[in-house]
C-alpha cells in the first residue's frame, strides 16, 4: 500500500512528531512509504526513507532535500523538466498545532488530498480542551469538573487543592503541573502560561484509574484496540511519555472486568461516531467509583498508538480504504444562465 507520512509542523510537539514518524517507518515496513516533512516555516520537504533519523532534522539537513509544493490532489516536486507528483493517501502525523488544530485538515481538504487524520470539526473539538468539555456535555459523556483561567483576567481558583493545571491547547503533558498547595501555584501558572493564554484547572484525582482506548472507523464499523492501563508515576510528564521514544512494544491488556471494558468501549464509540471518521484516535479515560470520565482525546496519538493494535498495518490499510469523501459543491452557473436567458441574451 502507498502511504505518505506527513510530519513535523510548527508546534511544541514538532520533535515528538519526528519520533512518531521514525517509529511508523518501522511499524509499517511492508508499505510503500513516502516521507514529507513540514518544517517550522511551513515548507515541505521530501525525505528519503534512509534519512529518517532524528539528527537529520536537528542538524537542518532537510534543507538540502527536495522541496515540495502542494497542488490539487498531490504534493509536487518541481524540476527543470516538469514536476513529479506524490499522489498517495496522506497520514497526518503532525501532533499539536498545525496537525491537530485543523490547519492541515483544512489544507488537505482544500487541495482534495485523501488523508488519514481528524477532519476540521473533529480537530476543533479535540485540540482545545475547553471545547472537548463542551463536546462531552453535548454527547452526554462525563468529564472532570473544571475552571478556566486566562492570562488577561485575574480570577481565583475555587477548586480545592490538589489541582492539575493544563494549557488549554496542548497535547501531551507539556506545561502541565500538579499543584498541591498554594505556594506551588504561581510557578505552575507561569509554566502553563508559557504555552497558552488559556488554562484549564481540574481537581487532581488521587488514586484514579486511567485507561486508554484507541480506535478507528472502517467498513462502516468502529474498531477498538485493547484497553490499556498506562504506567504512571503520578502522571506522565512530557519526558516519560515520549522520551522513552517509540513506545513500540506491545502492551498488555488492562486487567479489568468485562463490564468496565464494555463501558469504556461504549464511551469511545459515542465520542468517535459522526465526528472522527477518517481518523485513528486515542481516548484517555479516568475511572472513579466505576464511573467513566473522558480525560482527553488524542486525534493523532503518538506513534498512532500502534502498540495497542494487534494488526497495526492491517488497521491502517482498512482505515485508508474507508476514508470519508469531502463533498465538493458543483458550481453550475444555473442561476446566471437562467437570468441571462430570461433577458433573452
Amino acid at each position, binding site marked *: 500500500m502507498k502511504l505518505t507520512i506527513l510530519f513535523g509542523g510548527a508546534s511544541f510537539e514538532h520533535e515528538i512528531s519526528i519520533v512518531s514518524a521514525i517509529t511508523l517507518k518501522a511499524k509499517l515496513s511492508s508499505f510503500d512509504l513516502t516521507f514529507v516533512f513540514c518544517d517550522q516555516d511551513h515548507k515541505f520537504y521530501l525525505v528519503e526513507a534512509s534519512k529518517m533519523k532524528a539528527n537529520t532534522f536537528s542538524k537542518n539537513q532537510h534543507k538540502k532535500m527536495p522541496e515540495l509544493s502542494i497542488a490539487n490532489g498531490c504534493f509536487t516536486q518541481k524540476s527543470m523538466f516538469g514536476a513529479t507528483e506524490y499522489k498517495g493517501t496522506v497520514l497526518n502525523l503532525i501532533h499539536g498545532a498545525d496537525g491537530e488544530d485543523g490547519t492541515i485538515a483544512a489544507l488537505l481538504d482544500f487541495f482534495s488530498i485523501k488523508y488519514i487524520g481528524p477532519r476540521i470539526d473533529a480537530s476543533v473539538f479535540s485540540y482545545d480542551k475547553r471545547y472537548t468539555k463542551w463536546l462531552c456535555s453535548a454527547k452526554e459523556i462525563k468529564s472532570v469538573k473544571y475552571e478556566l483561567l486566562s492570562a488577561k483576567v485575574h480570577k481565583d481558583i475555587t477548586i480545592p487543592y490538589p489541582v492539575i493545571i493544563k494549557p488549554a491547547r496542548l497535547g501531551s503533558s507539556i506545561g502541565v503541573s500538579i499543584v498541591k498547595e498554594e505556594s*506551588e501555584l*504561581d*510557578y505552575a501558572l*507561569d*509554566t502553563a*502560561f*508559557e504555552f497558552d493564554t488559556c488554562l484549564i484547572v481540574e481537581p487532581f484525582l488521587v488514586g484514579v484509574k486511567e485507561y486508554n482506548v484507541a480506535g478507528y472507523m472502517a467498513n462502516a464499523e468502529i474498531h477498538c484496540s485493547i484497553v490499556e492501563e498506562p504506567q504512571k508515576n503520578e502522571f506522565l510528564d512530557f519526558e516519560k511519555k515520549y522520551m522513552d521514544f517509540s513506545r513500540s512494544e506491545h502492551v498488555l491488556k488492562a486487567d479489568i472486568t468485562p463490564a468496565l471494558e464494555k463501558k469504556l468501549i461504549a464511551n469511545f464509540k459515542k465520542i468517535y461516531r459522526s465526528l472522527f471518521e477518517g481518523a485513528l484516535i486515542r481516548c484517555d479515560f479516568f475511572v472513579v467509583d466505576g464511573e467513566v470520565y473522558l480525560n482527553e482525546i488524542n486525534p493523532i496519538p503518538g506513534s498512532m498508538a500502534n502498540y495497542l493494535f494487534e494488526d497495526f498495518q492491517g488497521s491502517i490499510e482498512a482505515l485508508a480504504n474507508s476514508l470519508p469523501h469531502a463533498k465538493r459543491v458543483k458550481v453550475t452557473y444555473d442561476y446566471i444562465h437562467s437570468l441571462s436567458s430570461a433577458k433573452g441574451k
Partner: protein
Amino acid sequence: MAIKSIQYNQHTINMSYEIINPHAKVDLIVLHGWGSNKNLMKKSFSPYMDTFRHIYIDLPGFGNSTCNLMLKTADYARIVELLMIHINASKDIILGHSFGGKVALLLEPKVLVLVASAGIYIPKSLKIKLKIVLFKTLKIFGLAKLRSFFVAEDAKALSEPMYQTFKNVVNEDFADEFRAYGGKALLCWGESDSATPISSAYKIKELITDATLEVYDGDHYFFMNKADDISKHIEKTFLKTLER
C-alpha cells in the same frame, strides 16, 4: 520553564525562568553569559547542590526572554531583581558566568559566585585597534556593507536594541563595584580563558575583600565539565556564611 511578564520603563519584558528543587530553603540564582541561555547553565549545574532552590533565568534578549529596549548592565540587574521579587527569591547565592557575573555583582548577594566573569577592562589589542581604524576608513568610502567582516562574533545577528545594549555592556570597567562588594565571593576560572583572561581573576581577587579563587583547566566554558567540583566549593562557601 515558566514565563513571568515584568514591567520595566514602560516596556513589558517576558522573562523565562525555571525552578529546580522548589521546596529547598536557600536560593541559588544562576545567570548565563552574553549570547548564551539558561539551558546551558542548567545542564551543567542542575544535577548538583540539591539543598538549594535553583533558579535559572534567561536574561532579557536571550533564550526565551524578550527585550525590545536598549539596556545597561544596571538595568539587567534591576530586571532580575524585579523577577526575584515576583517569585519570592532571596539573594542567598547568585552565580554568574561572564556577562552574567557583572549582573550578579550588582545584585549584591550574600555569596557571589563569579564563573569566568566579565567586568575587568582589557585594553584592545593592536590588531583590534587596526581593524577599527580600517573599518572607519572604509565607511568614509561608503563601504559600510563590509561590516559583517569586522563586527564581533557576539554582536552578529543582534536586533537593533540588543546591538545598542551590546555596545553598552561590552568593555565596562567594574573595578569600583568589585571593590564595593561586601559579601563572600567565590571566583572560578579557566586557566586558558581568552574571553575573560585569568589575569581578570587575579585583579578581582585583589579588589574583593573576602574572595577565594579556584583555577581549573579549560577555556571560557570550562565549568561545563567542572560543575561537580565548583558545586562543592559553592556549598562550602555558603556554609561559611552560617558560621558567623
